[in-house]
């Protein structure tokens, strides 16, 4: 008999064995209980998984409107438009622009002031303030820096740091009060010694209370 074609007699007899020889028959009831418990445990685990997933779905469904509302709110905040300066809001209008100042003493600086009418300017809002802060007095420029919350407004405010003596035409007020006494023009008198005594001839006198017309 060859290896590849074994006699099936002993194999069939081996298969017909009912239990392991020399050992007691296994406790099938106990084995079944274990198997049944395992199957039930698996069923309950599957059920629990379903319950958990259902609970998660419900929670998600409950939280979704809240989340959407929160997102909407956030978007509203983000999409707030940049501060738009109207002419009525700009510091320039805080100055007494209502009364057009007399133009006689400021003929040479007339080009620095916008010739547009105040009503037209206030009617058309623009993003960038039309008034160059360079022409504003330092107090007005500081106000602008405080209120600047956009880059467009902050950039010109930074330029205002230059020490330039700028006097806006609107600061001058009425035509009659346009004279400004500049403190650097201090009165002085220069005398020289002469034969008549000390300091008799006056060669220069600045105590005339010079009043200068407005100049930049």
């Amino acid at each position, binding site marked *: *008999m*060859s*290896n590849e074609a*074994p*006699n099936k*007699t*002993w*194999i069939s*007899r*081996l*298969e*017909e*064995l*009912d*239990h*392991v*020889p*020399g*050992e007691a*028959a*296994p406790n*099938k009831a106990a*084995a*079944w209980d*274990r*198997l*049944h418990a*395992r*199957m039930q445990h698996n069923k309950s685990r599957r059920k629990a998984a379903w319950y958990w997933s259902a609970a998660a779905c419900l929670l998600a469904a409950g939280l979704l409107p809240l989340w959407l509302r929160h997102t909407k709110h956030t978007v509203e905040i983000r999409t707030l438009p940049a501060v738009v300066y109207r002419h009525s809001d700009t510091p320039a209008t805080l100055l007494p622009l209502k009364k057009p100042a007399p133009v006689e003493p400021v003929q040479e600086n007339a080009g620095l002031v916008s010739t547009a009418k105040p009503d037209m300017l206030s009617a058309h809002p623009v993003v960038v303030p039309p008034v160059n802060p360079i022409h504003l007095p330092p107090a007005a420029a500081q106000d602008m820096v405080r209120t600047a919350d956009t880059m467009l407004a902050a950039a010109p405010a930074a330029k205002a740091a230059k020490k330039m003596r700028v006097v806006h035409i609107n600061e001058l007020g009425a035509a009659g009060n346009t004279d400004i006494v500049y403190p650097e023009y201090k009165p002085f008198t220069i005398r020289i010694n002469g034969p008549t005594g000390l300091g008799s001839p006056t060669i220069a006198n600045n105590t005339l209370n010079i009043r200068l017309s407005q100049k930049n």
Partner: protein
Amino acid sequence: MDIPALIKEAKQGSSAAQKCIFDQLADKMLLVCRRYVRNQEDAEELMLDGFYKFFKGLQAFNYQGDAALYAWLKRIMINECLMFLRKKQAFVVVSETAAAAIPLEEEVLNNLSAADIFNLVVQLPTGYRTVFNLHVIEGMPHTEIAALLGISEGTSKSQLSKARSLLQKMLLQKNITYVKRSTQ
């Protein structure tokens, strides 16, 4: 209740039907597991694992006869045992060239009782026993055994040859003791 009706009810989730099937087939399946795994507790656990998988996959099973059911369940059990042995690395089979085919004294085996044959097979080392079981008892070709165990075909043949050689020795010893006993 006959097997087809039990299968039908078990498919519907009847625990009673499942228990009936288990009661009818548990002993034979435990024997199959014991042929591969020596330890009784391990074999019982593997048998339970096999039945668990059987009941889990019962929906896909198409009943075509008791033999088919038995073959399917047996195959599940064998796979469980092989997986267990692989995990345990119980048989580290060294690649070997095919040894010369050693004829097995089938006549002697035929004269032995089923219990004696079972005990002889179980005494073989794990590697020999696995290949012997798969090839001689289950009738698998060496190519399939090689694929199942992750060894070469030559190694499978060599393991079988060694298993037969060892069985011959065991049979010879048994025969001597049998002769001694009979002459006393």
